[in-house]
């Protein structure tokens, strides 16, 4: 990919010892008429080359804003940004749009949620792929076309040569998402953001698209940030999982650790809200009661406390910090973690008082 002639400009292409992506205390606040919305409020993590981070949370938890913040895609007006984002050791948080342009496409790329709207309806599929190739890699038209054909083939589209000349509306949703993946991969990015890549797709196609992303990632040794509201989607595919709530990471751990020693009540509630095959039919889905907090005037203390079956007076006053426990890299922010004596005691106390908002749900724990 480093084509030589601009090697000097692309000094950041040189291998470094720094992790691919280091995010440190990133804050993204929006100024609105109602006040300042704290969409992302102090998020830190690091991502190594070729690894996958799953970012999980419900709507409004800030997960999409986080990925757009890292990519520098948010408007400049009325956005308050803070924190540090280092890509291969180079600080990119304060770069201008113009400076970011050299990262977009070749260093990091994004796959969007809805393939119906993320392709240009009046441009042939082939043109949409070759355009960025010719622009970034300065290759000939024929070469770009051959590459596009190979890309389409690699994302599992049959008869790629003919498909190059088709318009998006001639394809099904799953096919279009394959095309958007091909477009994102065209210039060989080192980091791929997949923002709910399967949410808009038919259930039968979802697994295929996720498998495709995983295989492409392996082949290209590309890191991926997989944003989703579905713990099930990241369960088998992410190396690490970060659970976000109200703009913060509330629990982060290697995937296996997270599922075996889930500590945060919110992660537990998310997991419980996934319907299980083993359940008899007509089992009630376990929804999380209440709604996400107002991000303009967040309550003091733990943001999840109003919906939490474990919540104690301390939770409503003091915000728990995100602290690493043990040596496995398991971090969580909770005063009364699930599966610990403190947590069990807190839950029992709430149930005795009949005040647990999710008493029925949590009883099964």
């Amino acid at each position, binding site marked *: 990919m480093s084509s030589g002639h601009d090697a000097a400009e692309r000094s950041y292409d040189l291998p470094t010892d720094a992790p691919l992506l280091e995010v440190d205390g990133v804050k993204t606040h929006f100024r609105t008429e109602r006040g300042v919305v704290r969409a992302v409020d102090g998020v830190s993590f690091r991502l190594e080359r070729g690894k996958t981070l799953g970012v999980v949370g419900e709507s409004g938890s800030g997960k999409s804003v986080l990925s757009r913040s890292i*990519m520098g*895609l948010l408007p400049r007006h009325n956005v308050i940004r803070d924190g540090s984002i280092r890509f291969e050791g180079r600080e990119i948080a304060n770069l201008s749009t*113009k400076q970011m*342009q*050299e*990262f*977009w*496409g*070749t260093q*990091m*790329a*994004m796959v*969007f*949620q*809805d393939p*119906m*709207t*993320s*392709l*240009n*309806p*009046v*441009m042939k599929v082939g043109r949409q792929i070759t*355009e*960025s190739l010719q*622009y*970034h890699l300065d290759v000939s038209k024929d070469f770009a076309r051959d590459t596009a054909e190979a890309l389409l083939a690699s994302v*599992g*589209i*049959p*008869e790629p040569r003919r498909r190059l000349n088709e318009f*998006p*509306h*001639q*394809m*099904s949703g*799953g*096919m279009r998402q*394959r095309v*958007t993946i091909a*477009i*994102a991969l*065209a*210039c060989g990015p080192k980091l791929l953001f997949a923002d709910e890549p399967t949410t808009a797709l*038919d259930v*039968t*196609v979802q697994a*295929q698209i996720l498998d495709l992303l995983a295989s492409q990632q392996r082949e290209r040794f590309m890191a991926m940030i997989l944003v989703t509201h579905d713990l099930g989607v990241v369960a088998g595919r992410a190396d690490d999982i970060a659970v976000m709530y109200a703009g913060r990471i509330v629990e982060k751990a290697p995937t296996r650790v997270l599922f075996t020693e889930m500590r945060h009540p919110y992660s537990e509630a998310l997991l419980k809200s996934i319907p299980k095959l083993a359940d008899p039919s007509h089992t009630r889905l376990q929804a999380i009661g209440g709604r996400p907090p107002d991000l303009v005037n967040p309550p003091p203390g733990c943001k999840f406390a109003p919906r939490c079956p474990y919540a104690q007076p301390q939770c409503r006053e003091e915000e728990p910090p995100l602290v690493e426990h043990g040596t496995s890299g398991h971090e969580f922010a909770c005063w009364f973690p699930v599966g610990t004596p403190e947590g069990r005691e807190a839950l029992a106390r709430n149930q005795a008082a009949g005040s647990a908002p999710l008493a029925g749900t949590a009883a099964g724990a």
Partner: protein
Amino acid sequence: MPERLPDSALSEPLTSDAVFHEAPAEVVADALVAEPGGVAGEVEGALKRRLGVAFWIAVGWLVLITLLAIFAPVLPLDDPDAVGSGGKWEGTSGEHWLGTDNLGRDVMSRTIHGARVSLVVGFAAVAGGLVVGGFLGLVAGFKGGWFERIVIALADILLSFPALILALAIVTFLGRDMWKIVLALGILSIAPITRLSRANTLQWSQREFVLAARTLGANNRRILFREVLPNVLMPMASLALIGVAIVIVAEGTLSFLNVGIDDAISWGKLVFEGKDSLEQAPHVAFVPAGAMFLTVLALNFAGDRLRAHYDVREGLL
């Protein structure tokens, strides 16, 4: 769930290599496109049918009148300005199919030559308005900020003037040859086109594919002209046809007020000339008026159908 299986095979048969080995390539190809291609093909077929006979009649009339206008000098027509090529106010005859006017000039020849001016004025003014207004609206809708506010404020000011008074003022100020009339009517068409183009741009630049292009490193100019413009162009082009109709009528109005083109004949001017003899020889005014009526109707109709056509396609996407 065994009944789910065919379903999944239908929606994404692409990854199963087995299909390829079992059937000849063409069969597989057909099976593969059956779902997406079939639906799209049907929809397009339905649209073609829904454009309807009336649409094609309208287009046919426009093509006919345009061809006549283009080839008027080489057609075996009387000289439109040849005074006394027939008698005064003659009716239909083998020599003068649509009769003659008060000076014995051939009405059909004059109407066809008038079409040259009317059509050129209509299309040129709207084309000018499209280039200027379309560009202003595009940039305003895309960039926003102070530029958008100024452009929209100017468009509002231009729109709040009574159009005819403004046209009269411009014509009085500039003069009355054809290109000055085009300029006047073109200026009038800028404001509505700007607003339309801005509205369309706003809508399209929110689409995710614009953001997707940005994540691939496209700069603003590229996004504006390659991603947004082609999408804005389609609805704008169909609306432009309606704009042409409006301008043709506006030119006619100017001519009828005797402040129109002074160095050539247009439909409006022919009607103006024929109005004094409405009682004795109504055809002198009605033939050019009819030509204008049919052309404007055809433009409106075609424009409307096309607009509906694109709306439907947008809905499908």
